[in-house]
């Protein structure tokens, strides 16, 4: 029969297993022979120890509840910071948008403009002359014959239009029964005799249209003013968020501090200092209407916002680290409670022989367990590998 060759490691493992198996066999033999050492009946110490363990598990349970509240508080602050960061980023976007719109726009104003004035003279109420009358318009004499009605007078005036540049028409409305003289463009009217309802000296001067003086000035872009309003609105929202980031009455973003106790007497704890993340706490002030009026001003605001973002990231990292510490402790405390309860439940039934047998059985089992392997590999990654 050929021999089986064993490596050194396997051989030592086998030897180990053999000796463990021997001890185990003996313990079990004694157990079956009824040679119990510490039974629950005759060991009140174990009973009271178990009670002590149970009450400690309860204490830790209450502590774990408080820690779990703390986790929620820090998580709420963490969420608040994330949301505030987004708002500050929106404020940055608003300021950048302002940079992309022109700071100034041209605005034209026209002064002194007047429309064209067509000369027009309205006479008094027309009455037919009792003898031939002479109406002098622009130096041209027009004869209105004796007893001529208004229509005839108008015809007479219009007969001279070529010379006077003035057209007559019958007035309407309030001017009914009057002759209205209207000059052509560029012609003034001057009546120099009293006749046909007109009084000597009645005149009206033509005035050409005046385009006025147009001045163009550069004024602040109203678009930027709108962006200032948006920016200020974002700051208000930041204030609201900072106020709403609490849990259970503790708001780490509104200046509250949190103290998390990890053991009953408070000797182990973590103090989490709160911050004030309202817009003023972050150093962001509401802008005046001209807050974005120049690019320099906008860039100043952008620099401020950049600083705030950095500050918020720092805070988020700090709260994140605190959260992870608290969560680790919370997890650890829960496991501790578990161990205490397991121990207490079995303690009253404990028996030294049984324990010895169990420990030896466990020893065997662990040699093949993944936990032992995992520990060994972790040891390989640190200073222990030098041993």
């Amino acid at each position, binding site marked *: 029969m050929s021999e089986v060759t064993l490596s050194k490691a396997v051989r030592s493992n086998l030897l180990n297993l053999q000796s463990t198996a021997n001890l185990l066999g003996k313990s079990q033999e004694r157990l079956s022979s009824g040679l119990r050492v510490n039974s629950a009946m005759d060991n009140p110490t174990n009973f009271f120890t178990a009670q002590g363990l149970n009450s400690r598990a309860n204490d830790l349970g209450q502590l774990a509840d408080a820690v779990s509240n703390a986790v929620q508080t820090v998580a709420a602050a963490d969420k608040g910071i994330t949301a505030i960061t987004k708002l500050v980023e929106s404020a940055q976007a608003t300021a950048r948008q302002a940079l992309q719109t022109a700071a100034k726009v041209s605005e034209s104003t026209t002064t002194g403009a007047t429309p064209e004035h067509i000369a027009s003279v309205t006479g008094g109420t027309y009455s037919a002359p009792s003898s031939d009358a002479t109406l002098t318009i622009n130096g041209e004499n027009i004869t209105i014959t004796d007893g001529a009605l208004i229509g005839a007078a108008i015809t007479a005036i219009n007969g001279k239009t070529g010379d006077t540049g003035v057209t007559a028409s019958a007035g309407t409305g309030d001017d009914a029964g009057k002759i209205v003289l209207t000059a052509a463009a560029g012609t003034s009217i001057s009546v120099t005799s009293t006749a046909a309802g007109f009084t000597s000296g009645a005149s009206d001067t033509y005035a050409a249209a005046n385009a006025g003086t147009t001045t163009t000035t550069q004024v602040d872009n109203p678009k930027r003013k709108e962006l200032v309003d948006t920016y200020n609105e974002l700051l208000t929202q930041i204030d609201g968020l900072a106020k709403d980031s609490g849990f259970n009455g503790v708001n780490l973003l509104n200046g509250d501090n949190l103290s998390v106790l990890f053991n009953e007497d408070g000797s182990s704890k973590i103090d989490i200092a709160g911050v004030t993340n309202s817009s003023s706490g972050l150093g962001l002030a509401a802008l005046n209407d001209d807050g974005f009026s120049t690019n320099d001003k906008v860039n100043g605001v952008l620099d401020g916002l950049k600083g705030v973002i950095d500050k918020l990231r720092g805070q988020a990292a700090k709260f994140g680290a605190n959260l992870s510490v608290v969560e680790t402790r919370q997890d650890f405390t829960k496991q501790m409670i578990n161990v205490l309860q397991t121990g207490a439940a079995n*303690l009253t039934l404990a028996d*030294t022989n049984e324990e010895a047998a169990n420990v030896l059985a466990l020893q065997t089992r662990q040699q093949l367990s993944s936990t032992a392997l995992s520990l060994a590999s972790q040891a390989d990654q640190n*200073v222990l590998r030098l041993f």
Partner: protein
Amino acid sequence: MSLKVELKPHERLVIGNCLVTNSDQRTRLFIDGKAPVLREKDILSAATADSPAKRVYFAVQLMYLEENIEKLTRDYFALVTDLVRAAPSTTPIIDEINNEILTGQLYKALRAAKKLIQHEQDILANAAARDAGLPDGGQADR
């Protein structure tokens, strides 16, 4: 105040991530600072941590040297739960270790874990001692 350590010839000492080996004469060291310090006699290796209690000690030793509890929490509790199930009388000592770990006093936790190894040996010795009365109990005590 400095930590005072006296090393025998060729004795080794872990300071932080370094292994310090003494030469062939006695040496006295004064150590300041925060790195974990462990004497050779207090160090278990993966190979020498061969009983349930020693494995718990080994896990705590890793936590102490790495100054990291989180990484080993799972393995540690697997070991501890197994041990408490097998030998409930270890619970008070384990509670003490847990408490020191929870409050971040890893060196004290290591000292408590040393008590656990002693307790385990007591359990086994106690069982083995009673063996004397039985016939055919030839195996040496542990």
